[in-house]
């Protein structure tokens, strides 16, 4: 027998993922699971699942999980963390959940400096409900509720969550990454790990926005979706660190 060079993270259950082919949720799930195991916090972590494609993520993360109402994951996470301050708490939310119905929740969880971590999957569309327009949908982008393309004169321009949250004083770490190729996956994992470390060190609220794809509702193949993300989403939602209180403290 040869040496094992790769195996599925113990941070994930054996339940098969329900996500569509080419969807990047699975990649992000894996990165979170690996970080929880590598930081040795899996057994004290409580995750909060959203309403959206990741609604069943409580089946996949191999830790205690709490399924929240649409947009309310940060409030649920607040209740958990305040009741169990020694635990590690994260929310996993899409852009419909976080940037539309849950805008107030995410702003105030950052505003209070709750010591939780949010992984925010931005793919510029509602996935689970079948491809409706999100606040993050790009101008001209066709969805089932913007069939002629999003018209900014009708419903405004998409807003940038990370940039907005970075203006909030008690936010500790806000960064935008993507997972469309190996170098970006490596960087995304480092960001997710850092976000959890910031929580463990009690620095405050941390959020990692992950630019992602939705081949099914974008009407593109997985490979075309990655090209579309790079050509359309990345210019509007630039990758980078928007807030890092550890940097100003002379840390990494």
């Amino acid at each position: 027998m040869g040496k094992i060079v790769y195996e599925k993270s113990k941070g994930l259950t054996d339940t098969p993922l329900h996500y569509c082919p080419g969807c990047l949720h699975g990649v992000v799930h894996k990165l979170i699971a690996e970080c929880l195991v590598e930081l040795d916090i899996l057994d004290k972590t409580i995750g909060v699942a959203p309403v959206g494609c990741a609604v069943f993520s409580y089946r996949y993360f191999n830790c205690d999980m709490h399924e929240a109402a649409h947009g309310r994951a940060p409030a649920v996470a607040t209740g958990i963390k305040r009741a169990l301050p020694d635990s590690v708490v994260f929310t996993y939310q899409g852009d419909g959940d976080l940037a539309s119905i849950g805008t107030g929740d995410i702003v105030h969880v950052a505003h209070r400096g709750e010591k939780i971590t949010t992984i925010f999957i931005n793919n510029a569309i509602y996935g689970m409900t079948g491809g409706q327009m999100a606040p993050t949908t790009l101008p001209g982008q066709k969805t089932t509720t913007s069939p002629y393309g999003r018209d900014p004169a009708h419903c405004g321009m998409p807003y940038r969550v990370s940039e907005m949250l970075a203006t909030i004083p008690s936010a500790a770490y806000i960064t935008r990454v993507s997972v469309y190729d190996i170098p970006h996956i490596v960087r995304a994992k480092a960001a997710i790990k850092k976000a959890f470390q910031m929580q463990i060190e009690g620095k405050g609220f941390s959020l990692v926005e992950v630019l992602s794809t939705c081949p099914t509702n974008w009407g593109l193949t997985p490979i075309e979706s990655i090209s579309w993300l790079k050509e359309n989403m990345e210019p509007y939602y630039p990758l980078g660190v928007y807030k890092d209180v550890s940097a100003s403290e002379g840390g990494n």
Partner: protein
Amino acid sequence: MGKKILMKGNEAVAEAAIRANCRFFFGYPITPQNEIPEYMSRELPKRGGVYLQAEAEFAAINMIYGAAGSGARVMTSSSSPGISLMAEGISYIIGAQLPCVLVNMVRGGPGLGNIAPAQSDYNQAVKGTTHGDVHLIVLAPSSIQEAVDLMYDAFDLADLYRNPVLVLGDGMIGQMMEPVEFKEATNKKLPPKTWAATGTRNSPDGKRRIINSLFMEPEDLESLNLALQKKYKEVVEKEVRYELYKMDSKLDVIFTAYGTTSRIVKYVIKKLEEEGIHAGLIRPITLWPFPQQIIGEYASNSSAKAFVSVEMSSGQMVEDVRLSVNGKKPVYFYGRTGGIVPEPKEIISYVKSIL
């Protein structure tokens, strides 16, 4: 028992909650219940607890959901419009079978209404708080002392049945001052919260916990509903509470009233007695489960000519009284709304008009 002290209803409710070992409060300001969060923000940090002001009622109830799922003894308080905003979260808490205590110091409605006492949220509390086939256990105090006593029971009932318990007061109960005496915590033997999600390192069986109200398979969701209904049947069998006042004499009329209104009715009964009209009162303390059986028994066996339900609403509890009386006697209704507390003389004159 401690000594009697004069306290405002809202503050007494908050103190009773802390003495009942509630250590977590999440809420949002709304009149006429603000003294509850204010008291909690002052006292909980000193007594090993956590007070947190949410950005909105819908956030507060979801903080409750999170803390309750973590095994905390937790509560919130609000007033009518705020409870409407909490409705969605309450359904998730019931679906996930979690305990918590809610207090509604009811104000006049609809809409922004006003901040005066009302009982216009009876139907909301008892029949239609939220979506799904669910119930809250609803306790309705008629004095500050009773509000205090019921707070202890509210937490125990919530833990016992793993269901939210609503204490339904009104602006009068919240704002009025009365002498109260606090008992020690009941320390009732309750089932351990082995279902709580506190991290697998704390799990008694090493398995992970999922706090959830989503069941995609119809059979699974029906199983949850059957479990809820089984629990509710037990609540109906065991937890009905009511007070009988002057129900022992030869009765001409039977009043039904709860909370603030019941106190006015008691005065009315004394006044009617002076005029030779014999009246009694059945006062529901649990609005759900409703004391249907005792009302039904009096409807069958009493000499009373009629029932009269007196409420600060347009006639909500009266529907449950009619169901309980089941056509055996006429059921009349007298109510005022908009924050008007009915005067004894108007109730007396109404009763005379129907007898």
